[in-house]
């Protein structure tokens, strides 16, 4: 008996956890809110996905970990029963006792939703139980099938859910390309039409069926491509990418251009902070300082409002803002340059707060407006043309991002970049072999600040008004999160991280209050499953030569001659 209990303890507890998860989701109101969001019209809504998803997960996990199929099925059954009992008791409980004064979402409507609209509670509970067991069985089935097939099913599911969640974006793009309302063929109030979902799934299966063959063919051909040719191909791909970026704002419309512009601003900051954090390993939690300096300088020197000081042109002040931010970075580096790790993070966090409080202070108010902020900051212009709409501004940000990408990429590959990495790996050793760590760290802070100043300057001009509350600690945190989620020191990671953390939440704004829950889950998932970030820094240490040398052999070649 005891042995049996020991055997079943794990599935029981995991099942109970799944049940508690369901209850939690229900009580936060997520289930009902998601219930209104259909994924496939009349077939599946997001709430059901959240309600039964944990059971699929249970089935998959327990079956995969089981020593054999029979044990697996028993464990899955036990776990699903535990989860069902927990959830079922909860349904019974909120049906019998009203706890709405504590949990506003524990309403009859929730009971009705969780029992799938059955009139009789018992029938509803039965239906819930059967579906949950079915979900567990589906999970187990997934665990037992070949990995390739399972992945195909996951991809298909992801694409269907993704299409439905991003229906607005897809519709917008379709409407720009085709006349009329082509999106109505695909979606109905954001939900995929069943036929469309079926086609999508079928295409995924067809594609996954063909991929192995295509890959085989490609493998035959790829090595034949000469380096010259490969370079051409990669250039063409890059060109196409830039072209897509150029037409993007007109495809996605004004609102999404605004989102993209914000993504770009955060990307600029992430690229900058990445120099300090990702390359040199300096945990800077006050990055907002540079952003604020850039923004205020641009605001004060170009505005035509109460704080008007010169009303200079945007393009004139842009480099000034960058230089000012770099100077601030240098200034702030001086006192903290000997600090390491946590202490550095705390000190820099202090700077971030100081700059916000300075911006708020009455002392500087005559100059920079205090809590009234700076108003009437003009949009950038070239001659008579003004960058008025989000689409226009997108191009300025795109240009800035591309420039910064190139600069950072060069830095990453440079000797200085390697020195930063040496300091990140072991500061004492770096110093002991002759690297001037003080100077190299100061340089990291200073260069890192430049990109923040640039982002701030564009931000001020884009918004037209700036207030101290725009420069909160949260910005520093967000930028740091992008770097951690994207992958420290990885430039591609920065791009992906910014899209995930700044772009996607905007697209999912229909789930307004639950957005940050997903954000948190994503952060935790990355921390657990991909500690190096979504796209960790590529193993670029395989390079042996800093640059092709005009004369003499490569060190590796000549050394083998010497030793051989």
């Amino acid at each position, binding site marked *: 008996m005891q042995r049996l209990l020991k055997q079943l303890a794990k599935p029981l507890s995991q099942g109970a956890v799944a049940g508690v998860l369901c209850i939690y989701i229900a009580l936060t109101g997520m289930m009902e809110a998601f219930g209104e969001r259909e994924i496939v019209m009349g077939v599946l809504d997001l709430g059901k996905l959240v309600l039964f998803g944990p059971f699929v997960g249970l089935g998959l996990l327990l079956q995969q970990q089981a020593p054999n199929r029979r044990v697996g099925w028993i464990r899955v059954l036990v776990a699903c029963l535990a989860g069902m009992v927990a959830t079922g008791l909860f349904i019974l409980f909120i049906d019998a006792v009203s706890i709405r004064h504590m949990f506003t979402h524990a309403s009859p409507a929730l009971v009705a939703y969780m029992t799938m609209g059955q009139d009789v509670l018992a029938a509803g509970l039965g239906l819930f139980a059967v579906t949950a067991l079915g979900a567990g069985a589906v999970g187990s089935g997934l665990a037992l099938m070949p990995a390739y097939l399972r992945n195909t099913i996951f991809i298909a599911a992801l694409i269907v859910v993704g299409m439905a969640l991003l229906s607005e974006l897809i519709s917008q793009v379709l409407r720009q390309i085709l006349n009329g309302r082509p999106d109505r063929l695909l979606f109905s109030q954001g939900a995929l039409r069943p036929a469309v979902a079926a086609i999508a799934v079928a295409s995924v299966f067809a594609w996954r069926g063909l991929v192995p063959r295509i890959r085989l063919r490609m493998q035959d051909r790829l090595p034949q491509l000469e380096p010259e040719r490969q370079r051409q191909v990669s250039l063409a791909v890059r060109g196409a990418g830039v072209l897509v970026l150029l037409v993007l704002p007109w495809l996605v419309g004004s609102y999404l251009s605004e989102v993209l512009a914000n993504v770009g601003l955060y990307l600029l900051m992430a690229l900058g902070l990445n120099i300090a954090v990702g390359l040199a390993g300096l945990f800077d939690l006050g990055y907002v300082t540079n952003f604020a300096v850039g923004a205020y300088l641009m605001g004060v020197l170009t505005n035509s409002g109460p704080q008007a000081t010169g009303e200079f042109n945007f393009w004139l002040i842009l480099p000034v803002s960058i230089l000012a931010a770099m100077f601030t970075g240098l200034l702030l580096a001086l006192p903290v340059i000997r600090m390491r790790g946590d202490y550095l993070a705390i000190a820099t966090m202090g700077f971030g707060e100081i700059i916000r409080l300075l911006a708020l202070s009455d002392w500087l108010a005559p100059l920079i407006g205090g809590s009234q902020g700076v108003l009437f900051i003009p949009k950038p212009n070239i001659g008579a043309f003004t960058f008025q709409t989000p689409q226009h501004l997108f191009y300025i940000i795109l240009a800035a991002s591309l420039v910064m990408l190139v600069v950072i990429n060069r830095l990453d590959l440079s*000797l200085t970049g*390697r*020195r930063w*990495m*040496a300091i990140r*790996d*072991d500061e*004492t*050793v*770096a*110093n*002991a*072999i*002759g*690297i*001037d*760590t*003080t100077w190299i760290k100061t340089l990291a802070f200073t260069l890192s600040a430049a990109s923040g100043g640039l982002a701030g300057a564009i931000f001020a001009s884009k918004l037209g008004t700036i207030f101290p509350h725009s420069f909160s600690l949260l910005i520093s945190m967000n930028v740091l999160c992008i770097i951690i989620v994207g992958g420290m020191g990885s430039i591609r990671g920065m791009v992906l991280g910014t899209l995930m953390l700044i772009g996607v939440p905007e697209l999912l704004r229909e789930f307004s209050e639950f957005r940050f829950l997903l954000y948190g889950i994503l952060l935790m998932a990355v921390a657990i499953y991909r500690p190096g970030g979504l796209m960790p820094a590529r*193993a670029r*240490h*395989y*390079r*042996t030569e*800093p640059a092709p040398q005009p004369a*003499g052999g490569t*060190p*590796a070649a*000549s*050394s*083998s001659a*010497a*030793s*051989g």
Partner: protein
Amino acid sequence: MHLLELRDVRAAYGNLEALHGISLFVDEGEIVSLIGANGAGKTTTLRTICNLMSPTTGAVLFDGRDTRGAEVHELVGRGMVMVPENRGVFARMSVYENLLMGAYQRNDKDGVRADMDMVTGLFPRLGERMKQPAGLLSGGEQQMLAMGRALMTRPRLLLMDEPSMGLAPVLVDQIFEKVADISHQGTTILLVEQNARRALTLANRAYVMETGRLTLEGFAADLANDPAVIEAYLGG
């Protein structure tokens, strides 16, 4: 004039004094070893010599000049470099990049390349592994890399901290052979080592350290025959 001289150097971690007045010297071309038990203050002495710690009183003279106030990297520029304990290679960089880090302060490209050849000549294993990340090297290879990286600064004085630590005996032999080779090429070496037997075989002179003080000094061969040393460090 001695290449390196310590005059009654005291150093402390906070209120805790770790060196109670150390006086020693190293002459050009010598291998001098500093032996002693764990916690005797050997590493602290090295850290003080290259200014990773400052002495509370006393003076460190390198090439006749007081090092007080000099930055660590400036001393490297003057020709003094340390091979740190536990090797301290930059794990995510390639062997080549690690070596290049050693040549950080140098502008003579040809000289750097020549020294790179010299290092790979001395350590053929490094030449074979130029492209690999240093973190994937074995312990012995990492020690070689740390030594090679230090040599890339073209030092006059090489400070080595426990090069044999954590290595298999056969590798320790190899490392000590390399230390001898480096010495033959004209680099002066101050070697801190727990493995007293090997250190005394290799060195010209040696100092014995106990709880922050030097208790014995002399020619290595004499010390190796000293009953007290045999009793305490060479295992009877």
